[in-house]
């Protein structure tokens, strides 16, 4: 049985001074620029905010957090990257931090591809060309690598390729005569067709990508291990983004209900609402704990990482959706308007819960991780009438 009893007992789950400073700095940078109106503008075709925000993140050195120092990165930890994702989520910031600075960067780091990593540390955006909902390397269908080194195939619904900060390089899992590999493809090259799609959550824009004998550069190394590492880091840290969304929803709703008056009294004083918010508080606290635990496990390369990620992803996804749904309901008519930011976070939560694996997919991982096997309907064991 792999459910080790003392699992992760010494992982620190509270922020240190470095993380507190990082959070405060990023929060200030975002508060000045990332207003709900400008975020909502992406739904009406104006995604200029994304570029401005990405420049600010690059100025703070944040895309370099997970890049090793020898490749021009900060060599900082997963906990700091988790803090960045948490704060970005609280502002519904439309930047490809998870897809580029975490998933693609970790995959490249696993390969040890120095030159490309250096460019990512400097702010270039990369995207791993897999469907947004995939979280296991085994579920990735490689594209065709031709003998002449070009690549063909199509991938639907990819995160971080299109939008206000389009990817400058695509990392494409391929299979050819020599087996599996990872190749780099430039979106502007002939044979590369990137079609932006209208996304449920326009702060995480999607694209459909079709490659037709596109020129590609082979990235040496273990492609499967690299894709697996990238997706694992994305799932582990993505939980912090979901926890951030849930925290925003709870605190915003509580603040509103503390001042909203109906029937001559503060609405937040009704016990029916107090009890709902108390339950939501408990859920959100637990979401924060699971997300921090997963980030700490990734940072420490703890053997409990896979379990921690399955727990954090499944829990935080559902709590983020629940919290933002409660936010819409408890803001009353205001929650249904375009002006109020509730809908921006609702869409992020509902879509974000599917990105890098649905809650059910992550719970499914636990069947083997902690030895809770699914039922086998054919194993009756008792005599049958027929």
């Amino acid at each position, binding site marked *: 049985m792999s*459910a*080790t*009893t*003392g*699992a*992760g*007992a*010494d*992982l*620190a*789950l*509270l922020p240190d001074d470095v993380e507190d400073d990082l959070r405060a700095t990023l929060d200030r940078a975002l508060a000045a620029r990332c207003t709900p109106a400008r975020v909502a503008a992406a739904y009406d075709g104006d995604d200029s905010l994304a570029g401005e925000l990405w420049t600010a993140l690059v100025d703070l050195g944040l895309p370099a957090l997970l890049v090793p120092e020898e490749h021009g990165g900060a060599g900082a930890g997963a906990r700091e990257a988790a803090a960045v994702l948490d704060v970005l989520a609280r502002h519904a910031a439309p930047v490809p931090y998870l897809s580029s600075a975490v998933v693609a960067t970790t995959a490249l780091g696993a390969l040890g591809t120095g030159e490309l990593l250096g460019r990512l540390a400097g702010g270039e955006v990369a995207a791993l060309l897999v469907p947004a909902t995939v979280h296991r390397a085994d579920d990735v269908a490689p594209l065709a690598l031709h003998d002449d080194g070009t690549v063909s195939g199509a991938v639907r619904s990819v995160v971080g390729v299109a939008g206000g900060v389009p990817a400058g390089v695509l990392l494409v899992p391929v299979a050819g005569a020599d087996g599996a590999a990872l190749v780099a493809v430039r979106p502007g090259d002939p044979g590369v067709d990137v079609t932006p799609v209208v996304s449920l959550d326009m702060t995480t824009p999607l694209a459909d990508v079709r490659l037709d004998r596109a020129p590609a550069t082979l990235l040496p190394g273990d492609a499967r291990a690299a894709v697996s590492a990238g997706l694992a880091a994305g799932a582990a840290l993505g939980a912090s983004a979901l926890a951030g969304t849930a925290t925003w929803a709870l605190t915003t709703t*509580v603040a509103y*209900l*503390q001042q909203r008056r109906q029937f001559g*009294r*503060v609405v*937040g*004083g009704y*016990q029916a*609402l*107090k*009890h709902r*918010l*108390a*339950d939501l*508080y*408990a859920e959100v*606290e*637990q*979401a*924060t*704990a*699971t997300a*921090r*635990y997963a980030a*700490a496990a990734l*940072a*420490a390369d703890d053997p409990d990482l896979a*379990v921690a990620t*399955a*727990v954090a992803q*499944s*829990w935080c996804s559902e709590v983020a959706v629940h919290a933002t749904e409660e936010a819409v309901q408890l803001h009353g008519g205001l929650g249904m308007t375009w002006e109020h930011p509730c809908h921006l976070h609702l869409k992020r939560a509902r879509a974000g819960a599917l990105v890098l694996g649905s809650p059910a997919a992550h*719970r*499914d991982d*636990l*069947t083997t991780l*902690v*030895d*809770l*096997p*699914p*039922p*086998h309907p054919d*194993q*009756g*064991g*008792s005599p049958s009438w027929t």
Partner: protein
Amino acid sequence: MTAAGPATDHRADLEARADALLAAHDPATTERQAFLDARYDAGLAWVHVPEGHGGLGLPRALQPVVDDRLGAAGAPDNDPRRNGIGLGMAAPTILAFGTPAQQERLLRPLWTGREIWCQLFSEPGAGSDLAAVATRAVPDPSSGSGGSADRWRVSGQKVWTSSAHLADRALLLARTDPDAPKHRGLTYFALDMRQPGVEVRPLRQLTGEAEFNEVFLTDAVVEDADRLGDVGAGWQVANATLMSERVAIGSGAAREAGMLGVVADAWRTAPSGHRTADAHQRLLRLWVESEALRTTGMRLAQKLAAGAPGPEGSAMKLGFARLAQQLSSLEVELRGDDGLRYDDWTLRRPDQVDMTGRDTGYRYLRAKGNSIEGGTSEVLRNIIAERVLGLPSEHRVDKDVAWKDLPR
């Protein structure tokens, strides 16, 4: 991510102290109480407690260093499960509110287990509304001089008292001023349970056993020297006790400890006919939720290592109760026709309560109490909403009225 430096130094120092204790008092030849007393004197009983009272003033998180070292050497422990209320509730209360003389007198026998404690809080008319307690403590006019009594006389009825039939001492909340509003007329005492004015009767519960008691107090004597906190300050003292209780109830430790482990093992060993796809999905959800609560407890413990328990612990207790009930109910289902059976309805009085013990039906029934004892889930939600989230308080009609004038 373990902090290096000072914590490592403490660790080595504690191991050295434990080794010195073992060298001076060989567990193989030392009588149990003598060893426990020596451990108390060495400051290794509870390291987070100040020096002189069995501790060294170190972080609570370092206690396992001592426990592991002494346990590995075969040393006796203080059998903490026998005195859960003493260690979990009485000790923090005495440490926070006791005088130096009280700490000197009460803490050692409490820790070594020579004195078992119980808690005389709830009454038939004071459950969630604990501040409504009607048990009276009156100064005994035959004691003391110059208007201040050395001794109080206590009369009233308490209920839901676990361990009362075993206890030597009780944490007692009693009314000393019926003319004051209810929160202000209470005083907190450490009552001697071994006296004629204290009568303990078993209280049978829905599991068939009598884990709790009713306690009838009739002119029971409590010395003024055993008063914890000021006269009239009982409510503040009681709140500190209750916070400790909720943390004690709410915080788990290892993965798959408690009810989850029982149900997960039931799944692993159940005949395949009882393992349905629906039950599997529910089990996975509960496994995740249990783990979410466990990591929340870890995080809370890391916060607590620095300070006192706050109202956040209420959320732990809320989650613990919900999970225990859902898990134990799922277990009944997983057991198939075994889930229809019950081990024994005979009235018995267990010395210790194991919520995950006995059989499936017992676990299911006992878990019903988890959302009632130590603060109902409804009251805990009020506490979270008001003290953590800052939402308005419930409308109160009884706050500024003299207790004796409240409608009953």
